[in-house]
């Protein structure tokens, strides 16, 4: 596949429990995807190349593994351990791998310990022939992010990761040292520390997150005036397209707690930020920060009026920790594996 088998990096791309949008995002780097094969030999990519596990076993070593999806089943855990053992650099790609993602919300309805074991087989009418019923791998007691079971070198957040950061990550990790022009282009899109290290030809510090440092509000194009939260609205409910901050209009926009990097993609078209980049650097807990941000702007000094507004809110945990419950929720996260 590659032109220089000695210098070319060996790549593995895999999704555990996820929707594979992250793998699609890798294909979605437009025409650059064709130039990728000049730098990399893709050794293992089940989704696109139909690779099997024995293809991975044939490889002595993988240079970079892009791992997406949350750890939900025993199979996911096994895959993560196998890929970690083979790979020099492990990248958690996408919100599920980086933070546990939406599958992680199941942790809310799971009591600790054994659970879901009764779902060991798929009891489904679509499975016509009895003997062909596939065995589902055992479920983990809790959904985890990748960093909670293996050591992760880099994170590319997002649901799915935005094209610019994904390409910057691929360039700085896969093509490092091969094309100064490409590297300086990638560096210009990355936070200063990561950018500086890749232009000087070394790998970014371990644990780097390929995204911005501040909150989404910093790059959101909306006009922020005085914040007054009057009524709670959900995104489908009508709101006035006035170019004003969505939080001021009563939508629960999480831009205030979320790491920037997307450039305010959702907020620009009137959808409140959902927090797929995880919490911003300075935030301790996204839920607490949101409570603070919304609560302190309630437009009332009357306890009963405030209680009435609060009553309208639904599913706070599912909203504030939509992508991050297993890793960034202060109360329920499991410590990372170092």
């Amino acid at each position, binding site marked *: 596949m590659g032109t220089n088998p000695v210098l070319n990096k060996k790549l593995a791309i895999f999704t555990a429990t996820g929707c594979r949008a992250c793998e699609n995002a890798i294909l979605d780097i437009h025409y650059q995807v064709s130039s990728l094969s000049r730098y990399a030999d893709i050794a293992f990519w089940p989704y696109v190349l139909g690779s099997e596990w024995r293809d991975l076993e044939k490889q002595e070593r993988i240079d970079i593994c892009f791992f997406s999806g949350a750890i939900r089943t025993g199979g996911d855990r096994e895959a993560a351990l196998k890929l970690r053992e083979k790979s020099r650099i492990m990248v958690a790609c996408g919100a599920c791998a980086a933070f546990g993602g939406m599958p992680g919300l199941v*942790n*809310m*309805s*799971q*009591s*600790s310990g054994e659970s879901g074991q009764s779902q060991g087989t798929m009891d489904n009418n679509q499975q016509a022939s009895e003997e062909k019923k596939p065995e589902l791998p055992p479920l983990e007691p809790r959904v985890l992010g990748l960093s909670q079971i293996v050591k992760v070198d880099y994170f590319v957040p997002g649901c799915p990761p935005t094209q610019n950061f994904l390409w910057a990550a691929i360039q700085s990790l896969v093509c490092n040292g091969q094309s100064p022009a490409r590297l300086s282009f990638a560096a210009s899109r990355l936070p200063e520390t990561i950018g500086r290290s890749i232009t000087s030809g070394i790998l970014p510090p371990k644990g780097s997150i390929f995204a911005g440092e501040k909150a989404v509000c910093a790059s959101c194009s909306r006009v922020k005036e005085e914040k007054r939260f009057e009524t709670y609205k959900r995104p489908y409910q009508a709101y006035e397209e006035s170019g004003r901050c969505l939080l001021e209009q009563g939508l629960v926009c999480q831009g205030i707690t979320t790491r920037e990097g997307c450039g305010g993609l959702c907020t620009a078209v009137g959808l409140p930020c959902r927090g797929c980049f995880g919490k911003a650097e300075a*935030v*301790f*807990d996204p*839920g*607490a*920060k949101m*409570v*603070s941000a*919304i*609560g*302190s*702007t*309630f437009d*009332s*000094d009357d*306890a009963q009026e*405030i*209680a009435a507004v*609060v009553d309208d*809110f639904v*599913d*706070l*945990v599912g909203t*504030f920790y939509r992508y991050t419950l297993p890793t960034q*929720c*202060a*109360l*329920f996260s499991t410590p990372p594996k170092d």
Partner: protein
Amino acid sequence: MSDFEPKIIAFLCTWCAYVAADTAGIARYKQKPNVRVIRVLCSGMVDPSYVLKAFTTGADAVLVGGCHPGDCHYISGNFKAMRRAPLLNKLLEEMGVESGRFRLEWIAASDAPQYAEIINQMSEEVRRLGPFSPSMIK
């Protein structure tokens, strides 16, 4: 369960609630020794993150004490606390933290007996609820 001593973190506003706590001590009101007081300039500066951090680092309950509405030294700080509390309570409840574990109380500087009573009440309630462990999901 009988030997369980609850750990209550109390964020007390330096102008009212802290003075009340001080006075309650000087006046030798009987109080349960389960409270760790953290003195803050205003109840309005107690970010919900502090409350969650207290819970994650071993507190069984958190009390926020501020001036009565209208009495704030900084004019409107306690209103901020008042606005945040219901939403924070709702979030905590969804995460399986019983409502008795987080309280916001208005305690004026002269309310020393009330302060002692709140402390005693709260320690009894938390003693009944048992130790808080972050892993209990409902």
